[in-house]
């Protein structure tokens, strides 16, 4: 096993967001192949529309429809599209001022190559065949040679308006826990628990994080602790956790392993839940291919004196 562990880590979450009245009208409009802007007090039409004037902070509510055609105000050629970007083939990022709008919208332009793109070029929206009320209802822009589109009034009202969006977000990492936690995990794979001692205050931290939070110095000296330990405090869990095959009630406890100056936590088994107590002496139970002790069970030793573990509560 290498000295420093690494593993793929995916962080993924579908953010659900509610929409304000202007955002709701704009995104519902996209679903209906209609682009709305919002008019500011000085008559400028902002597309995409916002709920408050970016200059005066005044509330904005006067919606108006702009055309699905417009002019590129700046662009950038992306030769290597990334996973979640709108097009899978090379494309241009563009800011487009739609006909009737006073500001530009960020999106992508489907074009054969950078030679086919220039600032000032005319484009139009290519609508996505499946539209849900999201900015991606615009599949992309495409070059357009036709007439300049005309803006028209719109009250922003639609049947069945979109009131929220779900925006999935996934980021991929290669996780490396660093030296101290790598050593801890490596020892666990041999069913041993290894902490680190602070060179200054001599406390042994388990699991080690590489530094002593009291002294602010690196910990490096590895110290094997346990396997036995003492229950310092505990709680009785009565709520069944999702995807966890453990009967309730059960006891979850802080356990100070012998030699450690910090309690770690684990489940207590092998004893009725209502007989677990502070000071109970326990030892780890490893099962199958588990990377951590499955639970801790009583050793049968006499309970530890309170004075022995009171600093570890």
């Amino acid at each position, binding site marked *: 096993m290498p000295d420093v562990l690494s593993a793929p880590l995916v962080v993924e979450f579908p953010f659900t967001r509610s929409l304000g009245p202007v955002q709701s009208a704009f995104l519902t409009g996209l679903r209906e192949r209609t682009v709305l802007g919002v008019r500011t007090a000085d008559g400028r039409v902002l597309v995409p529309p916002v709920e408050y004037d970016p200059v005066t902070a005044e509330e904005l509510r006067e919606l108006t429809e702009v055309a699905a055609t417009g002019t590129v105000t700046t662009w950038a050629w992306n030769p290597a599209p990334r996973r979640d970007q709108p097009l899978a083939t090379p494309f241009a990022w563009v800011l487009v001022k739609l006909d009737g709008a006073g500001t530009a919208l*960020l999106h992508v332009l489907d074009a054969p190559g950078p030679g086919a793109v220039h600032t000032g070029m005319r484009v139009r929206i290519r609508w996505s065949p499946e539209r849900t009320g999201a*900015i991606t209802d615009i599949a992309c822009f495409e070059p357009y040679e036709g007439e300049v589109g005309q803006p028209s009034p719109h009250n922003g009202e639609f049947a069945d308006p979109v009131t929220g969006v779900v925006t999935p977000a996934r980021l991929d990492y290669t996780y490396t826990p660093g*030296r101290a936690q790598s050593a801890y995990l490596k020892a666990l794979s041999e069913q041993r628990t290894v902490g680190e001692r602070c060179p200054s205050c001599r406390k042994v931290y388990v699991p080690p994080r590489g530094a002593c939070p009291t002294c602010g110095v690196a910990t490096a000296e590895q110290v094997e602790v346990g396997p036995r330990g003492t229950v310092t405090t505990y709680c009785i869990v009565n709520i069944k956790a999702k995807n966890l095959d453990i009967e309730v009630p059960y006891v979850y406890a802080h356990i100070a392993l012998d030699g450690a100056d910090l309690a770690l936590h684990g489940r207590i088994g092998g004893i009725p839940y209502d007989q677990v107590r502070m000071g109970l002496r326990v030892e780890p139970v490893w099962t199958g291919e588990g990377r951590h002790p499955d639970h801790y069970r009583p050793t049968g030793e006499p309970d530890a004196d309170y004075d022995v573990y009171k600093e570890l509560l």
Partner: protein
Amino acid sequence: MRDVAIVAFAQTDHLRRTDELSEVDLLMPVLHQVLGATSLKASDIGFTCSGSSDYLAGRAFSFTMALDGVGAHPPISESHVEMDGAWALYEAWVKLQTGEADTALVYAYGKSSPGEVRDVLTRQLDPYYVGPLWPDSVALAALQAQALIDAGHTDEAALAAIADRSRAAAADNPHAQLSGSVPAGDYLVQPLRTGDCPPVGDGAAAVILAAGDTARALCTRPAWIRGIDHRIEAHSLGVRDLTDSPSTRLAAERAGAFEGPVDTVELHAPFTSQEVVLRRALGLDAGVSVNPSGGALAANPVMAAGLIRLGEAAARIQRGESDRALAHATSGPCLQQNLVAVLEGEAAHA
């Protein structure tokens, strides 16, 4: 207003990967360096403030674990910003202004190597209209660069010259990740080539602030913060004039940058094109030394690179190489938010 100065600064070597180091491992050496330089113990520090983002390494609550390196237990007076450390320094400066503390430790770290920083930074964008398109940080900078080219403010050769000058200057910076002769490379997102973009890597930095006579006692030539201010642009890219940075100009004005000449400027311009925008916004003379450290094009530990600009400018003052310096930090896409500080050394006869 209390006189507040930067009295110590340290930064790590900035590296493409630091797999063997957790964030706290990365950070501790610079914390110990600034404490050592001032002979302060962690327990002497009145206020601690940090800047970082858990999204970079995908490690939830890494900023609380980083606090282990400070010796934060028993509890200390402490705060954190999910922004570049330059904004943590601003918060610490405010704290010192209140009189509640005389010293502050400010630190920042960024570990971009575990993730894809171009994708990670899309998550700071407007989640309704922009985020779902995943426009990466290079793409947005490229839109700004093209706007500058279209407006006649620069061209690709001028951008390449900024990259060359920065990395040549970085040859004297032992912490730089990228220095010397670096090829312009292929287009990453046209018109920006790899050479126009900052290196991706890991690094950390720390600064100690002190007020009044405490600063004089801790440092032979403190870098006094004569003014500091930060301002932001409208959040929709299409509303902004991407060729200008009115927020930088306003912050500089409020910081007093235009009240006298500066001899040194540290700009936080991760992309060559952004230096063009900032030079125009600040009206910099051609004679001023810009980014003698190499700037963010030489090392860009995200969340620390802005704090490093303040630290580099202060270090020059402390070494007597500058008397009045401007330091700038940025955050967000296309120079969305900008902080400007004016630093001064006291004259030898004062």
